[in-house]
């Protein structure tokens, strides 16, 4: 199990470094690139949790498709996006935000560690073969969770239509405006 622990800590460091990079890097373009590193490291953690299909989907859908969308918009908007923090470098809002986030971490950790779930300190239940494989996910999606699956597809359709409506060129929007 030593290899598993080493892999966990390497991936955890990658995940945390990516997350901190997203928040701390000044250039939004570098933030997006940092998030890609974060997502790839997270996929390794998903593999450690025996979720092969989710790990593959994470790489293909997230780190591939969605991040390319981000990179396009970041390149399009470019220098118009501000790079600094709210209320200046050492503003009260920024310091308060960091304190609130630290408090949030403490509260969540206390809630989890104090939940007296016995299984938290184990490696989890015994798994039947095929756990997390594409076959099992497909069986679950099309049998047990058919309605959420269809709702998700409808949600994606609505989102695509909304994006077209939001981003299309409209007369009177460019010139004049508010």
């Amino acid at each position, binding site marked *: 199990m030593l290899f598993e622990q080493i892999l966990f800590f390497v991936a955890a460091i990658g995940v945390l470094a990516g997350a901190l990079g997203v*928040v701390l890097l000044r250039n939004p373009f570098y933030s997006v690139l940092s998030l890609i590193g974060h997502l790839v490291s997270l996929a390794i953690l998903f593999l450690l949790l025996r979720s092969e299909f989710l790990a593959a989907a994470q790489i293909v859908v997230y780190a591939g498709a969605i991040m390319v969308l981000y990179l396009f918009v970041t390149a399009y908007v470019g220098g118009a996006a501000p*790079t600094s923090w709210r209320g200046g470098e050492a503003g009260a809002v920024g310091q308060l935000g960091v304190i609130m986030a630290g408090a949030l971490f403490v509260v969540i950790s206390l809630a989890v560690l104090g939940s007296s779930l016995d299984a938290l300190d184990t490696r989890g239940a015994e798994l039947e073969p095929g756990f997390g494989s594409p076959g099992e996910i497909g069986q679950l999606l099309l049998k047990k969770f058919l309605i959420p699956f269809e709702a998700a597809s409808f949600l994606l359709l609505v989102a695509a239509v909304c994006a077209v409506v939001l981003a299309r060129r409209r007369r009177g929007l460019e010139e004049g405006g508010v």
Partner: protein
Amino acid sequence: MDVVWFVVLSALIFAIGAAGVMTRRSPLVILLCTELMLNACNLALLAFARMHGSGDGQIFALIVMVVAACEVVIGLGLIVAIYRKRMAIDVDKLSELRG
């Protein structure tokens, strides 16, 4: 690895994402930070799915990824629309809806 390690790591990622949402000014980076928070939730969901040995949590995580994709599309569409209107892409200046 024990499940608790994954859950605490996901809490840490969630807190980092929340800090980003509260402190950064660019809506692009705020969207990225909400992605961080959604990913933290996914990690916790998969850890608990592993703990119970059932695949239901993985379906939940898949649906969360779908919702994240929709959120990205709408958010980026809004940012492009704001940019087209020549307004400042800055959450401190986009305060007309503030109550």
